[in-house]
C-alpha cells in the first residue's frame, strides 16, 4: 500500500468531518436560539459534505492519498497521528454516507417536523455523520476506533431519542453494551498490532503483517472480527439490532440499515491484507456470515412489527456481505457492491416504512395495516421498487449484487463452497418470503386499521428522498456491476480483478436464485395473500414459528447466560464487600473495643490485686533476665 501526500482539494478533505461536526456543535451549544433554522443547518452541512466528497472523489483518480493533521498521542515508541486516508475504498463510503445521509436529513425535516426536540435530533445525526466519516477516513486503527465508538455514541443517543420510553432507553443501552463487547475485540487487536509490529497505522501494519507468525495474524483477524460482529449485528452479537428500531425511523434507515451497521464489512475489507494471511480467520468470517444470514432470514419471517422485519432483513443481508468478505479477494468487491445497493434499497424501505407509520399514527403492527396501496401511491411504488431490489428481482440492484456473492461462494470450488452457495440461495428464498409477506400485509388485502386512523400520503419533503432512493435501488446494481464496474474502481485497494473461472455458470446461478425467489414469494402469497389475516398473532403455532418469533432465542440466551448471573454476582459481591471486606475492618475495631473493656476489668480498683500484678510482673522480669543470662 503506497500512499501519496494530499494535495489541492484533498488536503481539505478533513472538512468532510469538520462540517457536520461543526453543525452538531452549533446545534447543541446554540440552544433554543437555533430551533427555527437548526434542521436546515444540519441538512446543509451534510449536503455540503456530499458535494465536497464528490469533488474529492473526482480529484482522486485511483490514488491513495494520506492527509496528516496533527499528533494525537505520541509517547515512547507509540505514535498515534490524527490522519486521514482518502482512497477509492473510503471514497465509496464517503459518498454512500454523505449521499444517503443527506437524503435522510431532508426526509427527517418532514418526519420530525412536530417533535419538540427536532433540533437535537439533527445535532445527533450530524454527530453521527462526522463520526462515521472519521471511521472510514481514518488512516490508522486508533483513529478508526475513535470513529468506531463515536458512531456507537450517536447510535445510543438516537435510539434513546425518545428516552421517556423505557423500552427506547433500554434498547439504546443494550446496543451500546453489545457494541462495547465488540469494541474490546477491536481494541485488543490494536494492542496486539502495537505489541508485535510497533505501529497502528494501516500502512505500517499492512506493510509488515507478512512477517508475523500465523497464530498472531489469526488472533488479530479473529479479534477484528469480534469488533465487526458487534458493530454489524452479526452472530453472536446480533440481538441489539432489532431492538435498535426503538429509535426514530430515519435513524433506523441511516444508521441501522445503510451505514453504521456496515462498518464491520468496511473493517474487514479494509483489513484485507491481514485476512489474506490467515485462512482460518477468513473461514470463521464465512461461518459467521452464513449463520447470521440464516438467523436473520428465519427471524424475519415471523415478525409482525414492520421495522423488526426490515431489521432482521438487514441482519441477514449483512450476513451476505460477511460471507462475501469471508471469501477473500474474490468476495471483497461483491461484498462492497451489495453493501452499496443494500444501502440504497434498505434505506428506501425504511423511509417507506416511516411514511407508512406516519400514516398509521406510528403503529408498527402490520396486522393492523392492509390496503394501503391505494391510499399512499408514492410510498407504495417506491417501497415496492425497494422490495423488488431486495429480493433480487432480475436486473434490479439486488439481483446483481446478491448473485455476485452467491457465484463467488460457489467459486470456492470445494464442498464448503457448495454448502455456502446453497445456504445463500435458501436465504434468498426466505428473503423473498418475508418481504412478500410484508408487502401483502401492508399494502395488499383489505384495511385492518385501528379506529381513527386516516392514512394519507406523506409530504413531498419526505417522498422526494424516497423516490431518489427508489431510483437508486433500481439502477445501482446495473451501474456498479455492469456500467462502471466497482472492481476497477477498487483495483488500487484490492488489486486487479482476475477473471475467475466460474465453477457454476453465472446464468445457472441467476436462474436458480430467481426460481427460489419466485418460490418464496409464492409461498408468502399462499400464507397471507389468500387468507384473512388475524388481527393478533395466532398463539397456537408450531415450535419453529415460535422460535422464529423469538429470533431463535438470542435474547433468552444472553439473559440467562450473562445478565442474570451478572446481577447475581453483583449482589453477592456487594454483600461480600459490606459484610466481608468492610466487616473485617469494623470487626477488628470491635474486637479491640471488646478486649479493651475485658482487660479493663483487671483494673479492679483493689490495692492488693494491683500489688499482686506488680509482684507477678517482678517475678516475670526476674525470670526473664535469668532465662536470658542462663541460656
Amino acid at each position, binding site marked *: 500500500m503506497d500512499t501519496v501526500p494530499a494535495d489541492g482539494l484533498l488536503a481539505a478533505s478533513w472538512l468532510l468531518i469538520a462540517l457536520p461536526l461543526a453543525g452538531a456543535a452549533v446545534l447543541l451549544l446554540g440552544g433554543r436560539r437555533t430551533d427555527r433554522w437548526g434542521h436546515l443547518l444540519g441538512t446543509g452541512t451534510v449536503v455540503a459534505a456530499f458535494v465536497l466528497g464528490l469533488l474529492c472523489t473526482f480529484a482522486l483518480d485511483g490514488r491513495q492519498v494520506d492527509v496528516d493533521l496533527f499528533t494525537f498521542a505520541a509517547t515512547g*515508541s507509540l505514535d498515534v497521528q490524527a490522519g486521514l486516508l482518502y482512497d477509492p475504498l473510503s471514497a465509496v463510503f464517503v459518498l454512500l454516507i454523505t449521499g444517503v445521509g443527506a437524503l435522510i436529513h431532508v426526509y427527517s425535516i418532514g418526519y420530525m417536523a412536530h417533535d419538540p426536540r427536532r433540533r437535537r435530533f439533527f445535532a445527533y445525526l450530524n454527530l453521527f455523520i462526522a463520526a462515521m466519516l472519521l471511521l472510514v477516513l481514518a488512516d490508522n486503527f486508533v483513529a478508526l476506533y475513535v470513529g468506531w465508538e*463515536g458512531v456507537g455514541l450517536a447510535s445510543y443517543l438516537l435510539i434513546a431519542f425518545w428516552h421517556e420510553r423505557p423500552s427506547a432507553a433500554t434498547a439504546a443501552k443494550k446496543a451500546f*453494551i453489545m457494541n*462495547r463487547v465488540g469494541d*474490546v475485540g477491536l481494541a485488543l487487536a490494536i494492542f496486539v498490532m502495537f505489541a508485535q509490529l510497533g505501529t497502528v497505522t494501516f500502512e505500517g501494519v499492512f506493510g509488515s503483517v507478512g512477517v508475523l507468525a500465523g497464530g498472531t495474524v489469526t488472533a488479530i483477524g479473529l479479534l477484528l472480527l469480534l469488533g465487526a460482529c458487534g458493530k454489524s449485528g452479526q452472530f453472536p452479537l446480533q440481538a441489539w439490532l432489532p431492538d435498535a428500531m426503538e429509535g426514530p425511523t430515519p435513524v433506523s434507515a441511516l444508521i441501522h440499515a445503510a451505514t453504521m451497521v456496515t462498518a464491520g464489512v468496511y473493517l474487514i475489507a479494509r483489513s484485507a491484507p491481514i485476512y489474506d494471511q490467515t485462512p482460518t480467520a477468513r473461514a470463521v468470517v464465512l461461518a459467521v456470515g452464513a449463520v447470521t444470514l440464516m438467523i436473520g432470514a428465519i427471524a424475519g419471517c415471523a415478525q409482525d412489527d414492520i421495522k423488526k422485519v426490515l431489521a432482521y432483513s438487514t441482519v441477514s443481508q449483512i450476513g451476505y456481505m460477511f460471507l462475501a468478505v469471508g471469501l477473500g479477494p474474490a468476495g471483497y468487491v461483491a461484498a462492497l457492491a451489495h453493501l452499496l445497493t443494500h444501502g440504497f434499497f434498505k434505506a428506501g424501505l425504511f423511509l417507506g416504512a416511516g411514511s407508512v407509520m406516519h400514516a398509521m399514527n406510528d403503529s408498527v403492527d402490520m396486522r393492523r395495516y392492509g390496503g394501503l396501496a391505494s391510499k399512499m401511491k408514492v410510498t407504495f411504488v417506491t417501497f415496492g421498487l425497494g422490495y423488488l431490489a431486495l429480493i433480487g428481482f432480475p436486473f434490479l440492484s439486488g439481483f446483481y449484487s446478491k448473485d455476485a456473492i452467491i457465484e463467488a461462494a460457489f467459486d470456492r470450488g470445494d464442498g464448503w463452497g457448495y454448502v455456502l452457495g446453497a445456504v445463500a440461495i435458501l436465504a434468498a428464498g426466505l428473503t423473498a418470503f418475508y418481504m412478500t409477506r410484508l408487502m401483502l400485509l401492508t399494502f395488499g388485502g383489505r384495511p385492518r386499521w385501528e379506529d381513527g386512523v386516516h392514512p394519507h400520503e406523506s409530504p413531498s419533503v419526505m417522498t422526494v428522498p424516497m423516490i431518489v432512493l427508489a431510483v437508486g435501488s433500481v439502477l445501482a446494481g446495473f451501474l456498479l456491476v455492469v456500467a462502471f464496474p466497482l472492481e476497477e474502481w477498487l483495483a488500487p485497494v484490492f488489486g486487479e480483478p482476475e477473471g475467475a473461472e466460474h465453477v457454476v455458470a453465472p446464468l445457472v446461478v441467476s436462474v436458480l436464485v430467481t426460481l427460489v425467489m419466485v418460490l418464496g414469494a409464492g409461498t408468502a402469497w399462499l400464507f397471507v395473500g389468500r387468507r384473512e389475516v388475524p388481527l393478533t398473532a395466532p398463539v397456537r403455532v408450531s415450535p419453529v414459528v415460535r422460535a422464529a418469533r423469538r429470533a431463535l432465542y438470542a435474547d433468552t440466551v444472553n439473559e440467562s447466560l450473562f445478565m442474570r448471573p451478572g446481577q447475581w454476582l453483583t449482589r453477592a459481591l456487594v454483600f461480600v464487600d459490606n459484610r466481608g471486606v468492610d466487616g473485617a475492618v469494623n470487626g477488628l475495631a470491635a474486637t479491640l473495643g471488646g478486649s479493651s473493656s475485658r482487660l479493663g476489668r483487671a483494673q479492679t480498683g483493689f490495692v492488693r490485686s494491683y500489688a499482686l500484678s506488680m509482684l507477678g510482673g517482678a517475678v516475670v522480669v526476674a525470670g526473664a533476665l535469668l532465662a536470658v543470662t542462663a541460656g
Partner: protein
Amino acid sequence: MNDFPFLLTMIAVPAVGAAVVAALPRGRDVLAKQVALGVSALVFLLAVLATIAFDAGGDRFQLTTSVSWIPDFGVDFALGVDGIALVMLLLIGVLVPVVVVASWRDTPPANRSMSTFFAWLLLLEAMMVGVFAATDVFLFYVFFEAMLVPMYFLIGSFGGPRRQYAAVKFFLYSLVGGLVMLAAVIGLYVVSSSELGEGTFAFDALRQIEIDPGVQKLLFLGFFVAFAIKAPLVPFHTWLPDSGAEAPIGGAVLLVGVLDKVGTFGFIRYCLPLFPDASRDLAPFVLVLAVAGILYAALLAMGQSDLKRWVSYTSIAHFGYIALGIFAFTTEAGTGAVLYMVNHGIATGLLFLIVGMLIARGGSRQIADYGGIAAQAPKLAGAFLIACLAALALPGTNSFVSELLVLIGSFPSVPVFTILATAGIILAALYSLLVYQRTMHGPPRGVLLEAGTGPTPAEPVGGSGTATVTAPAPAAARLRVRDLSRRELAVAGPMVALIIALGVYPQPLIDLIEPAVAATMSDIGADPAGVQPATDTEGTD
C-alpha cells in the same frame, strides 16, 4: 522568571489565605467565599506560570527551592517538580476554584459557618501542593499526614448524616498506612546513613543508593501499604465509599480527584525509583490487586443504590487502571497512568459535581429517587452524560487517551492482566449507562415529582442497585427540577471543555509527563524509549 519560588508561593498563598478566611468574623461568609475564590484563582495562575517556566526537556526536577529544616534528621524543606508533579499541581489549580464556586450556595450544618469550610479547603490546597512538590521524603511524609487534618474536618464538620463515622474511618485508615510508611521512611534514612555515611532524605540522593533486595522488599511494602490505602486498591478500599458518600461535594471532589492521587503518585514517584528490584519482584502481586480492583469495583459500582457511593466505586475501578499502567513498567503505560491521574481528576470531579447538583435538587442520594430528568433538564442531563461518557472512557473524552495509553502500553509487558483490564471497559459502560438511564431516562418519577402528578417515589432497595422502578407516572406527571443555573454552568462548563479539549489534543500534557516517566523507567531498568515491537515469527499470545 525561573528563579521565582513558584512552589513555595503556591504553598504559602493558600495557607495564608486559609488563616485570613479563618480569622474573618462570623457571618462574613460572602467575603470568605470571595477571598477563597481569589486565592484559589491566584494559585491556578501560579500553576500556569510555573508550567510556562518549566522546561519539559530540562532537568528532572525544576523550580527547586531548598532550605535546611531539621539538620539532625538530615531533613531539608526541599521543593521541586518534574512533569508528573507539575500536572498534578495544574489539576489542583483547576479543581479548587471550581470547588469553591460549586460550594458557593452550600448551607453549612447547624451553627457552623461556611467560612470555616473555605478555610479548611484552602489549607487542604496548601497541603496538597506541598505533598506533590516535596522532593524530600520526610517533607513528603509530613505533608502526606498533615493533609489528613483538613480533610478530616471537612468531612466531619460539613458531611452527611454519618459524617462522624466516615471522618474517623478516613483518618484512621490513612493514619495506619501513613504510620507503616513512617517505619519505612525511617528505615530508608537508616539505610542511606549506612550507605552514604550520613543519613539523608533527599529523593535524588536516595534514588542513587543500592539497597539490599531483602531490605528493599520491606521498605517497598512499607510505602506500598500507605499508597495502596490512599489510592485505594482493593482490598484497602472500603473507607473511600464511606468518605466519598459522606463528604460534602467539594470535599469529595478533592478527595477522589487529588488526595487519592497521592497514592498512585507515590507508586510512580517513590516505590519505583527507590526500590526498583522490589518493584519488579512484587509487580505481579500489585497487578493482581489492580486488575482485581478494576473488575471487582466495577461490579460493585453496578450494585450501588447511592449516587455518591457509586461514583466512589467507579473511581476505585479507575485507580486499578492507573496502578496497572504504573506497574507495567513501560513508558507508554506510565505516561498513560499519569495522564489518567489528571483526567480522572477532571472526569470524576465533574461526575461528583453533577451528582451534587442532582442531590441539591432532590435532597436524596438514592439513585431510585430520580428518573426522567433528561426530559426537563437537558443541560443537567447533558453534563451528566458527558461525565458518564468520560467515566467509560469514550473516545473524544480525555479518559480515552489515558486508558488507551495505559492498556496499549501494558499489553506488551503484561498481556494477560491487560486483557482482563480491557474486558473491564464493558463493565464501565454498564455501570455508567445503568445509572444514567435510571436517573435521566424513562418517565418522570422519584422525589422531584410534582405533588399529585404521579406515584410516590420508590423506596430505594438497600445494597443491591436494582432500584424498584416506580410505575410510569401519568402523562401529566412533571418534575420540580430546574435546569442548570448560571453558576452551575460556570462550574460544569470548564470541566466539560477540559474533558473534550484533552480528549482531542492531549499531546501537550503528554510532552510534559513523558520525560519524567522515561527517567523513572530508566531508574527501574526498563527501556525509557518505550516498547520495542516483538515481531516474533514464533507466534505469541
